[in-house]
């Protein structure tokens, strides 16, 4: 029996990140939705939970840490992966202590993120 496709949410206020990640993650059969702000993303998550949320950490209004906390409040099983820039690695480590599954620093290759998603998927299956 084939595995269910993963539902993945990508949140980044830089349009290019979602635009580039969507086709790269859909290649492996996942269902991907992209958002450029936290509010819309959280509203969508309230309608329908996702298996994996990939979110930038530094965004206006709602930042990645708040998204992490609010997602985990709603769904403990969801794996949240944090995207970070150069200067925010410390904050990303803080995110790990708050329950993030992993973090990845920009710039990165889609294949690097796919590896993390595979690990997250393995934990979801178990």
């Amino acid at each position, binding site marked *: 029996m084939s595995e269910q496709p993963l539902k993945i949410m990508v949140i*980044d206020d*830089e349009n*290019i*990140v979602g*635009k*580039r*990640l969507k086709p*790269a993650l859909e290649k492996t059969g996942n269902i991907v939705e992209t958002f450029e702000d936290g509010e819309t993303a959280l509203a969508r998550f309230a309608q329908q939970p996702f298996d994996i949320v990939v979110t930038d950490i530094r965004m206006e209004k709602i930042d990645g840490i708040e998204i992490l906390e609010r997602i985990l409040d709603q769904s403990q099983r969801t794996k949240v992966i944090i995207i970070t*820039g*150069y200067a925010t690695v410390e904050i990303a480590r803080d995110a790990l202590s708050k329950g993030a599954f992993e973090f990845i620093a*920009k*710039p*990165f*290759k*889609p294949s690097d*993120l796919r590896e993390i998603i595979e690990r997250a998927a393995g934990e979801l299956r178990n």
Partner: protein
Amino acid sequence: MGILEKLKRRSATESGIRDFCIQTIRFKKFLENARSLLDCFEDGREKFFGEYIFDRHYVVSVIDRVVEQLGMMVYDASVLAPESGEALFAAYDKHKLAAENLIASNGLDMNNRHSNSAAAISDRDDPEYRLLSDALRWFNGKGASDAPADQPTVMDFMKQVFFAVMAALDGPDNAAKQAVIENRGTFAAGKDLYVIDLWKDAHALPKTNRAVSDVRSVPFRHLLMDTGGEKGDAGQHSLKACAWVAAISDDQLSLSTLNPASRFRLETLASGYESSDFIFVFADRSVNLDVLLPEGFHVENSESGRFAWNLDVSAKIIGDSLMVIGRNLFG
């Protein structure tokens, strides 16, 4: 000569040697900043051509790093070549302005597009990718397109800065270098070579001539390791007639000619840490680097001479390269 005159002369030589040591250490810093600039170019290039996900923040940070490192290089150059300082800072200000304009354009200046094909445009049509492509063209003329850059590149300016520094360091007016010749204590027995210990001679000059075998510098030993046998095949007659000065520490060697008519300079760090070790060579047009250097060097040509470097190299490669160069220069 009276005792007072002798003391005065000794004191002038000592301060000249000290200046020479400071110049050499500053030049190494200058090269480190140049190397950081090249790393920025390479990082941007790798991200552009390597299918990376990046955002505008990344591109702006690379441009900012280039401006910052370039400023540090120009500062070092103004210390090493004070007479060129004003002109270099003026040119640097233009590059700072070019960087600001680049960032402000946000990759949207379609007049500045020089793409080879429609495919290249459509594949990298996002403003962030266009901005990085424009930045790469500003760095060294190598963006998505191979069309010539329409303004002086950072690499062009780096060469200009290098020449200003080389002219000051290896020109006939460098008093610090003249002081080396006047101090016979630094002369290395058996070779037409003056050896300056960067960390000792600045404080107290040796009283007798040095023996090459007493010099403990690792790169210096490699350079002369294979020079006793057959003559090298470089045919560098102009260099073979030269006197040389080698400024050394345990892991550093700065070798240059004392003859302004044949300019050659080799700088190397052989600390055992690959990520910081390097060999850098500059030679004027009278020197044929093709036969002097072993394979593996990146070479940049210019009207006044050639630069060659090998970065991130293992201790073995540095040792082997120095043996080949030493054989060709001194064999």
